[in-house]
């Protein structure tokens, strides 16, 4: 089994990810480099909207790898995650033969590659080219699916009883994301490298805004980042994350605002904050109340 990814160093990871539009912090770059060197899955946690899913997309783009995504939800099961037999097609095949075949022939024919529906996990394992496997929102899935993941992520092989064991020729780069609504099991955590992506530092966030919203004036971008940072430390119900910062920056470009003023902040606060009591709290934090 060969490794999919080849990064030279932590700096190399940073520059390659930057080329595809993902500005990685030291922590992110180091962990991605380690994950690719040690061949271990990467478990990414953090608040919503800091770029957990985006990271795997960027890694895939940076290495020219195919991105295979398994979106977890309550009740996702083996048939959705691993593989499934195409029952309808199997029935068609049997009725088309009209009993002119022997039982042995029919059986080996019906359980062949043609009737197998590969789901994300199997797809990633069978892929010959470089692959990034993204298992998104792992915490939403039931505990049972974790057992399945343990097996797949441990050996990178899947056993289909009728076909035999399928082993990966290339070790896919695996990213699991979680919003920590449920504690993932200790066994799964143990097999992964852990990365907690937090809100970026002010400098990094400025760079991100400059990269993603190039039309925004640099001083205005600076003010935006400072206001967002102030909001984050105000103890809100849902602190604004990078996604909200970018939304706000785009809104300001669309409004054609030259500088931040009380009125503009007041009008566009809904882009950054999504709860009414947060907006009320932010008004006091930013001293907006005397205006309206």
């Amino acid at each position: 089994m060969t490794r999919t990814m080849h990064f030279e160093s932590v700096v190399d990871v940073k520059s390659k990810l930057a080329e595809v539009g993902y500005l990685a912090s030291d922590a992110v770059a180091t962990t991605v480099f380690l994950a690719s060197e040690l061949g271990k899955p990467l478990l990414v946690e953090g608040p919503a909207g800091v770029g957990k899913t985006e990271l795997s997309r960027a890694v895939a783009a940076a290495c020219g790898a195919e991105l295979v995504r398994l979106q977890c939800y309550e009740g996702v099961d083996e048939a959705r995650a691993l593989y499934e037999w195409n029952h309808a097609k199997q029935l068609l095949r049997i009725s088309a033969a009209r009993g002119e075949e022997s039982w042995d022939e029919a059986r080996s024919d019906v359980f062949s590659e043609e009737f197998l529906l590969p789901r994300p996990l199997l797809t990633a394992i069978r892929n010959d080219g470089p692959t990034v496997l993204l298992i998104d929102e792992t915490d939403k899935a039931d505990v049972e699916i974790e057992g399945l993941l343990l097996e797949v992520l441990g050996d990178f092989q899947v056993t289909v009883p009728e076909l035999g064991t399928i082993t990966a020729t290339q070790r896919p780069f695996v990213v699991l994301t979680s919003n920590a609504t449920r504690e993932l099991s200790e066994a799964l955590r143990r097999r992964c490298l852990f990365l907690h992506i937090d809100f970026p530092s002010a400098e990094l966030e400025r760079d991100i805004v400059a990269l993603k919203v190039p039309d925004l004036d640099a001083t205005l971008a600076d003010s935006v980042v400072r206001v967002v940072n102030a909001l984050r430390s105000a103890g809100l119900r849902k602190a604004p994350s990078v996604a909200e910062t970018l939304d706000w920056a785009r809104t300001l470009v669309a409004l054609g605002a030259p500088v931040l003023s009380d009125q503009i902040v007041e009008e566009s606060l809904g882009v950054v904050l999504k709860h009414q009591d947060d907006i009320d709290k932010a008004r006091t934090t930013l001293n907006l109340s005397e205006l309206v």
Partner: protein
Amino acid sequence: MTTQVAERLVEFVDALRLKGINAGPSETIDAAAALEVLGFDDREVLREGLAAALVRRDGQRDVFDMTFDVFFPAGVGTPTAVQDSEDDLDAEQLRALLAMALADDDARALTQLAEVAVDALGAVGQEGSGTQGWSAYQTLDRLRPQTAVAQALAMRGGGAGSGQGQSGQFTDRLERDEVRRGVARFRELVAAEARRRTAEVRGRQTVARHAVAQSKDRVDFLSANAHQLAELRRAVQPLARKLATRLAARRRRRRRGQIDIRRTLRSAMSTGGVPVKPVYAAPRPSRPELVLLCDVSGSVAGFSQFTMLLVKALSDQFSKIRVFAFVNAMDEVTDLIKDGSGDLIGPIQSGARITKWHTSSDYGEAFGDFVEQYLDAVGPRTAVIVLGDARNNNQHPRFEALRRINERSRRTYWLNPEHGSRWGLGDSEALGYADIVPMYECCNVEQLSGFVGRILPV
């Protein structure tokens, strides 16, 4: 990998385990592999690499960082910044430099200042006597960094630094907070530097054991400081959400399995006695009523407050919640809790009648009150939870009052934030009360969330 490095790593992992980061041998091996891949060239890269291998969940990172600084220090001995500065600086000059660094928001300058400040102001004990070390408390006490805030603000206003902050701009109003955050960061830097210098004199293990704070969910309620309590309050919402999901999963699993035998057999008659379709019993959601009796006297207020907030956040799991607070008189505070957020103890102390003729806690008196006035709040579907350390100040414990409450309720529990080893010592009536109702040790968030997860209805 040389044995020296391996030994240092194992020592490091040992220190982490003492602080509640349970890294097993496989994590240590991962960390070693990370060390080999990353090398020692860049300290921050090394820090992130080791964290990826050893830290397994959010909330352990602070502990990890502090321990890392002790075991893999940035330098040895007197920092170069101190050697470079030619004359000895006094507190006054340092404060001026600090104000400058805060005004420019210069992280490097802050770090160097912290090093210089600890060296100049923080030395305690006598050399070679075993008491020698560097104290962050003393440094900060002499430097008083908060006094630099006004100065830094004045400098910013004057257009110092990068030219931002001409008066009249929207972002001006953020500056005070930004400078304050700078001061908070400076305090942490000073603490880290003091730990590093002390570790060199006293040994790494000693410092790691005593000077590195516990991780958040293991902080003792009784010994937590104001900052830690505020941090705990912030942890309430995520914790409640986690408990609620755990419950939802448990409820779903229960619903799946229950077969109603009688109705299954009845419907089997239409298929010749063969039970083709099993009939499932309709789920009967039991959402019990909850009554909380909280001691809000000074010693256990932090614990009671956290538990009240947690119960409030979980309120949709119960059909009805009533909260009573007492020091030595019982009063209902359900409405105060419902409206309040953040600090609850203040409003309770001003808005409810919780004391009589003295101000120390008296459980017997409070239970007596409850039985007289509010006993109808407790019914056969009610779970009663008593929060307190059962330290009765040598008053009459009135066991029979608690016994009456227990008999009327479905279940009664007692959560005691004191360590089990101290129950029954001094004026503690814990053992007496524990004979009547089950008493659980609840020193930290870990234990509390474990308990709440167990008693919540399925």
